[in-house]
């Protein structure tokens, strides 16, 4: 039995999905769009599969999420629609329900957060609501796991009995007339296209172009339809879209007037207003937000994060030593041992060393999102980001970019518009991540010993400036067109369940491991091969003879106008693709530097302060590490976009470094 879980954003849909399926979940994308599709099997009911559809407010044809949901119901023909409705916000939630009921698929409404309604002294007459709506209504509390067993058995009954919503008429007067006449005209074609005639007629009256195309009406039929709608608009004195929305809401107001007793604001709403008095306060909002983010960064990259990180790398180190000893004992050849230890294990190690950081950041991100604070950040920051063609929603992912680009790019998943998502993915790596810091530290120690902090800060600022300029550029070129509407609900603050947060964290960690493992592993192995073999494919002890070094020598002249045309610098930039801090280890190997002092001296000989700054600017801006590329590939949804993003970032790095070096030369 296939169950489609549909509901508004913030209605507790994900919580219900987690309660129903536990960890039996599978995450993927809907074909062709980067809209996430999650499905899972209901616990103890192996024959019942639930598909978690995106959170939507309507079945309009404008957003990818709404179209995906609609097509899923029409094409995949689920046995039951499980429509989750937030009982504390029932009017707006039922707006979607009315549209779903017209799809003529067996349906159940789960009335969520009933506990909040009751504890605030309000009430909903569920039996009466069920009768008025013509579909089963079950009160539940997803977060407290109440009413779930009952819900499952009703789902089974409704699905197996194929109990359709009782046909109802929510329309009156002129709208009713229009829908009625159109239904007759298009009935045959709608059935042929597999769309319920009444739904099709309603959508045609609304001016839905997708239904228009699907029905393949003749010119004559289209003319009649347009005539009917014009008549309706004339009679009502309003346009088609407003007329339908008004009609649905009026109908809902009628039902709610008879079934909902709402004397008080809920406790959660009152609490939210109090919290917002601080968190979106005119002067306090920004300092509080910065404080919260600093705390998150401090925990992730400070004592707790580094403790977990050390634990991980010690574990990996111990395992590597064990395998190394075993290989030694087994007497495998030197190249195989080096391949396994320096190639494969080093690669796996670099993947795993990301894990604690990613898990911690996602723990906090999911807290921010699920408590409702993320929506407030978007509200507060919207004006700043709108100038570069984004909305406030992109702010947190970009900020996370200062920690690590990988979770930052993964966090763009929550952005409602595909355009914003792609733009944010391209801009985020310009935020200087923590892996670039060791490179800055080394170079500034060697060449700017007096002004170390100043140079580092200027690099961070440079990244932000480039991101802003890129935003302006992309807004007026590749991402031309209207920015997505910023019409966003500010949900009541709620404490998410530990289970939800953990599942989310685990999901993201798993996702990262699965996707990143292959690409990082391949990258590490390729770099190992290039670094360890010479052109006759023999293992080489002198790094100068390696394939990598000769590639470095070939591309080095490209960097000459940037001030660092040395083959060692070029080679280090190539290895920086696996992880940016690798730039240091490669340089130290290629310089044959015995200790850090030797490395500093070597750098002082090779770079001038100006060429060093150009080099650092390049390290800051050029394509992020393999793990970030893997994340980009995943969130972009296609290879072409990923390659374009990489090309754009590397191109920007080249141009900016070139400008720094060439203009700097005029003055220094």
């Amino acid at each position, binding site marked *: 039995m296939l169950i489609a879980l549909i509901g508004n954003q913030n209605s507790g849909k994900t919580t219900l999905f987690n309660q129903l399926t536990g960890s039996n979940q599978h995450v993927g994308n809907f074909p062709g769009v980067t809209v996430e599709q999650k499905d899972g099997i209901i616990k103890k009911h192996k024959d019942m599969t639930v598909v978690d559809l995106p959170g939507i*407010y*309507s079945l*309009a044809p*404008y*957003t990818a999420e709404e179209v995906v949901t609609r097509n899923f119901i029409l094409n995949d023909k689920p046995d039951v629609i499980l429509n989750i409705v937030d009982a*504390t*916000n*029932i*009017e*707006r939630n039922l*707006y979607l329900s009315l549209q779903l009921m017209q799809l003529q698929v067996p349906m159940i409404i789960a009335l969520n957060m009933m506990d909040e309604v009751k504890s605030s002294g309000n009430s909903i007459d569920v039996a009466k609501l069920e009768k008025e709506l013509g579909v089963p209504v079950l009160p539940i509390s997803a977060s407290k796991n109440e009413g779930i067993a009952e819900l499952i058995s009703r789902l089974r009954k409704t699905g197996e009995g194929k109990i359709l919503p009782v046909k109802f008429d929510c329309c009156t007067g002129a709208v009713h007339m229009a829908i009625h006449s159109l239904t007759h005209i298009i009935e045959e074609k709608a059935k042929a296209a597999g769309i319920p005639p009444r739904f099709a007629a309603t959508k045609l009256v609304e001016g839905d172009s997708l239904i228009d195309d699907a029905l393949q009406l003749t010119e004559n039929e289209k003319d009649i339809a347009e005539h009917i709608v014009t008549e309706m608009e004339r009679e009502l004195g*309003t346009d088609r*879209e*407003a007329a339908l*929305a*008004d009609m649905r*809401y009026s109908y809902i107001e009628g039902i709610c007037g008879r079934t909902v007793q*709402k004397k008080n604001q809920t406790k959660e709403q009152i609490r*939210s207003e109090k919290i*917002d008095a601080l968190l*979106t*306060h*005119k*002067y306090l*909002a*920004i300092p509080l937000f910065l404080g919260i983010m600093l705390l998150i960064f401090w925990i992730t990259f400070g004592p707790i994060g580094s403790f977990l990180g050390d634990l991980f790398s010690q574990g990996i180190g111990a395992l590597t030593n064990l395998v190394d000893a075993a290989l030694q004992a087994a007497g495998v050849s030197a190249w195989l041992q080096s391949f396994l230890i320096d190639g494969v294990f080093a690669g796996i190690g670099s993947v795993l060393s990301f894990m604690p950081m990613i898990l911690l950041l996602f723990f906090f991100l999911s807290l921010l999102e699920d408590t409702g604070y993320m*929506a407030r950040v978007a*509200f*507060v920051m*919207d*004006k*700043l980001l*709108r100038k570069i063609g984004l909305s406030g929603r992109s702010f947190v992912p970009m900020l996370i970019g200062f920690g690590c680009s990988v979770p930052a790019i993964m966090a763009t998943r929550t952005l409602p518009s595909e355009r914003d998502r792609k733009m944010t993915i391209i801009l985020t790596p310009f935020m200087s991540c923590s892996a670039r810091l060791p490179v800055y530290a080394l170079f500034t120690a060697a060449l700017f010993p007096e002004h170390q902090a100043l140079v580092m800060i200027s690099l961070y600022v440079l990244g932000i400036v480039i991101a802003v300029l890129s935003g302006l550029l992309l807004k007026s070129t590749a991402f031309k067109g*209207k920015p997505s*509407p*910023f*019409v*966003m*609900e*500010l*949900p009541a603050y709620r404490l998410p369940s530990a289970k939800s947060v953990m599942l989310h964290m685990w999901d993201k960690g798993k996702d990262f491991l699965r996707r990143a493992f292959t690409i990082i592993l391949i990258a590490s192995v390729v770099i190992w091969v290039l670094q360890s073999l010479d052109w006759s494919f023999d293992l080489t002890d002198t790094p100068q003879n390696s394939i990598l070094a000769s590639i470095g020598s070939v591309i080095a002249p490209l960097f000459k106008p940037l001030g660092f045309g040395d083959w060692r610098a070029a080679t280090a930039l190539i290895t920086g693709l696996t992880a940016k801090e690798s730039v240091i280890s490669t340089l130290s190997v290629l310089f044959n530097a015995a200790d850090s002092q030797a490395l500093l001296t070597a750098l002082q000989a090779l770079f001038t302060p100006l060429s060093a700054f150009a080099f650092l600017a390049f390290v800051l801006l050029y394509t992020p590490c393999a793990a970030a590329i893997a994340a980009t590939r995943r969130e972009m949804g296609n290879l072409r976009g990923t390659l374009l993003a990489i090309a754009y970032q590397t191109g920007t790095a080249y141009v900016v470094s070139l400008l720094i070096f060439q203009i700097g030369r005029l003055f220094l």
Partner: protein
Amino acid sequence: MTLQDLSVGKTAKIITVGGEGALRRRLLDMGLTPRTEITIRKIAPFGDPMELSLRGYALTIRREEAAKIIVEETAQGCGTHTRMRWRGGRA
């Protein structure tokens, strides 16, 4: 008057929702339909967007959109009126 002209704390009734395409449809879908009562709760720290209260929930929209929504201010009791005006003046 438009929704943009309404000051913080004031309540108004929607007359028409202007604009076009996806954005207008979104406003209608979110319950900004004619005759709906709507209260301005807050303006964001940088002066935009604004937080509204309608149909028992909180919604945020930009001033640009608010300027396309024609409203009619609803009369309020004397006491609240002055208090609200003072609050509106500060924001």
